[in-house]
């Protein structure tokens, strides 16, 4: 444990982060390494340009929205704790956590996950997905291949299906209901973190960082193996 705790000291505020988000040590380390990779100029924080440099995000239809979710409007930079906090939404849901009331709701609870997804739809932050916002989202996802009328009718239908109180917009509760009723596999939102950790650990392992650490990492890899989902 000696060597890894020294590594952990590199990461600022690691212990608090671990407690707050529920990530394990190796997870935090992996994330920090990734953070450092992204932060090419080693400023200690990430900026918009660093995210935009990720190639695959550019082709992603909602890439800019995802970046926006990381980097809040009004703030120029993203430091490591915020980075981790956002990613904490994607941990698998703890079934053991119960509503004790004293602790704030953890980031990976179902509601928080849904709220994160909701915030990507709801760009102006008014708590509702309006027609315009949904149209924008669909436009982004469908690209140039759809005509306006088709888009409008899809949007109209979607709103009408989900909108239970008939106010012309989808509120968070309606969104929750829709996600619950469907088979959209919100579970898949949680699956991602397991594999991420494994991948990064393997990368580290390949790069090689010393004997005992290799053993430690290998052990972690074995426990977080490849998942069927």
């Amino acid at each position: 444990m000696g060597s890894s705790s020294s590594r952990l000291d590199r990461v600022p505020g690691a212990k608090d982060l671990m407690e707050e988000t529920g990530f394990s040590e190796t997870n935090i380390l992996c994330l920090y390494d990734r953070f450092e990779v992204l932060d090419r100029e080693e400023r200690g924080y990430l900026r918009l340009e660093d995210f935009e440099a990720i190639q695959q995000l550019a082709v992603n239809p909602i890439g800019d929205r995802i970046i926006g979710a990381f980097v809040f409007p009004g703030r120029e930079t993203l430091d490591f704790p915020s980075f981790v906090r956002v990613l904490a939404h994607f941990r698998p849901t703890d079934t053991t956590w119960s509503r004790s009331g004293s602790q704030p709701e953890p980031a990976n609870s179902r509601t928080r996950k849904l709220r994160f997804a909701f915030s990507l739809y709801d760009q102006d932050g008014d708590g509702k997905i309006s027609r315009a916002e949904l149209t924008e989202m669909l436009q982004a996802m469908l690209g140039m291949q759809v005509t306006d009328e088709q888009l409008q009718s899809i949007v109209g239908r979607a709103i009408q299906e989900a909108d239970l109180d008939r106010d012309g917009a989808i509120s968070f509760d309606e969104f929750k209901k829709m996600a619950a009723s469907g088979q959209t596999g919100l579970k898949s939102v949680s699956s991602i973190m397991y594999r991420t950790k494994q991948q990064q650990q393997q990368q580290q392992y390949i790069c090689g960082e010393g004997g005992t650490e290799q053993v430690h990492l290998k052990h972690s890899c074995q426990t977080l193996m490849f998942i069927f989902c």
Partner: protein
Amino acid sequence: MFYQVDVKSDAEVQVVESGLCWLTGVWYVTLACPCFFPVLSSSRFHLIPRLSNIVPESCLLITVGLLVGGLIRLAGEKVPPVLNSHLFFLCLLPPIILDAGYFLPIRPFMENLGTILMFAVVGTVWNSFFIGGLLYAVCQITPAPSSLHQLELLPCLLFGSIISAEIHINELLHILVFGESLLNDAVTVVLYHLFEEYSGVGTVTVLDGVLGVISFLVVSLGGVLVGAIYGILAAFTSRFTSHIRVIEPLFVFVYSYMAYLSAEMFHLSGIMALIACGAVMRPYVEANISHKSHTTIKYFLKMWSSVSETLIFIFLGVATVDGDHSWNWTFVTVTVILCLVARVIGVVGLTYVINKFRIVKLTTKDQFIIAYGGLRGAIAFSLGFLLDRDVFPKRDLFLTAIITVIFFTVFVQGMTIKPLVELLAVKKKQEAKRSINEEIHTQFLDHLLTGIEDICGHYGHHHWKDKLNRFNKKYIKKCLIAGERSKEPQLIAFYHKMEMKQAIELVESGGGVKLPSAMPSTVSMQNIQPKKPPPAKPVERALPQLPKGREEEIRKILRSNLQRTRQRLRSYNRHTLVADPYEDGFGDLLIKKQKMIELEKKIKEMNNYLTVPAAPPDSPTMCRARLASDPQSYSVKPSSGDVPTIQVDLASPQSPDSVNLLDELKRADQQKQDEDQGLMMRPPSREGRANKQGEVESSKEQQKLMRCLSDPGPSADEEEEDEPFLP
């Protein structure tokens, strides 16, 4: 299977040569049973409703088989052997598998693929080894009939592999059991051949074991590859079938069957080939073929697979009565018990392992259903039937045991599973239709997760799925899908499908017929014409105010036009699809309904709009010209009873007539789902522009519906048809 020696072929020859004795006649009548038995059973179920709840259909079928077999036996005749390897594996099995493979829900299957493979492969192997091994042990132990001691290990294993075969007629709602039963067949067949080869050889070395594993991989993956190739070929062919719509279903069937045969020829797994072929070709073929062909394929597949299943069960019953049995209490009871035990242990053990890797764990209830629902069936029986008597002296014993196990599972487990499921309150899979929201949300989540993966620098599940989708869209779809639909995003295609389904439902519910027609018929005629009328005109025409003279003129023109259309002779061509007049009525009724809605909306919105609509006199002529040019699409107009007479049932904005219209539409709509009602019926004050757009869009959908229903190929005309609807 081709090289199997048909044991009873001599007897068959004898029977054939001696002419068609009356019992053979009875036999063939029994074969015809499947055609009318389902009808009988359903009518019987109607008569005795309780029966259908208790007794599953498979039991009834076996009983019928038993009866017929008993009848033949009593008469002392030998049953003409009809269940031979060729018949079963070439004729009876493929339809069932193709039906399962073609309608395989790809996404849930792929998401659970690991679990399914685990259950299918490891579970089957476990079952066969466990049962085979223990049977051997038991046989060694029993002091009683010494004949049992002669059972070698290999035959036991072989028997074990047969017994672990599962029938794919599963009544359970879980994709796991469905997928597992599909793959399980392939695994079983492979194991069967493996053990058979080994039995022929005599001794087994470790090398043989390793070779066995390799051959298993080769057989299954090779089968999948062959199937995929044929699937792509079929998709490619379907791209060019726009002018020969009649034989489109044939391509699907022929290619699938060829995939099966080719795989069997190379001793690969034909079942996997068939599944792969169906699953691969489906998305592309469905984008290419007409609506009618799609329906044809669907119903043919369902029909054939149910006929096959029925036949198999009947054979089972007959062979039970007729076959040479050698009954051995020990063997049989031990087999039955072992089957159950092995199944339970297998499921529990595998679930324990699998749950470590799954996010959504399998609960105990799920495990119970999986364990209990495994039915041994026809494959086991036929595989046992195929055993060569010389190599396996205990063949009859095996067969007896197999039959007992099958009977046990079908009757006992089949009958008790339904109450058990209800008792355990297992959540039934929602037969919910996928809503557009789900579809949007699923795609959104895919993109989101891919993005997050990219941020984390991780090439995971979503990353590769995204890459595959992109590749698919960029290259494959262009090759395999004809015309403009290759560029259609999946969401749009899904939306089209949904709208079409609802439109058909609406018309089937009779909503369209009750409407007053008036303006809609004029407007619909207008909209068909290829020329672009000025966009304002349809709007204006829909308005209530019409001078009397104009109204009369329109009425006259329309009536004469309709009469003329009816009298038009058409040349009959065997190779063209005669359009179904009922179906074309659909299209018209839909258009009418849409226009009615639009009318109502515009009444509300444009209160003070007073414009005299000018019906250009040449429009019906244009219309007729267009109709005449496409002999397939527009047939005889609906019969006089349905001819829309023009009653200008005008509704001025403030009058209560508008309310009447609403009521009319409400009544027409009441059978439909709420959502559509909402879409059409909500007062425009709230949704306003949205609804108008929605209807504009839906009426475009109906144009597309008409296209599909009437089978012309995709043509440039459709683009022009879109124009009139633009506000």
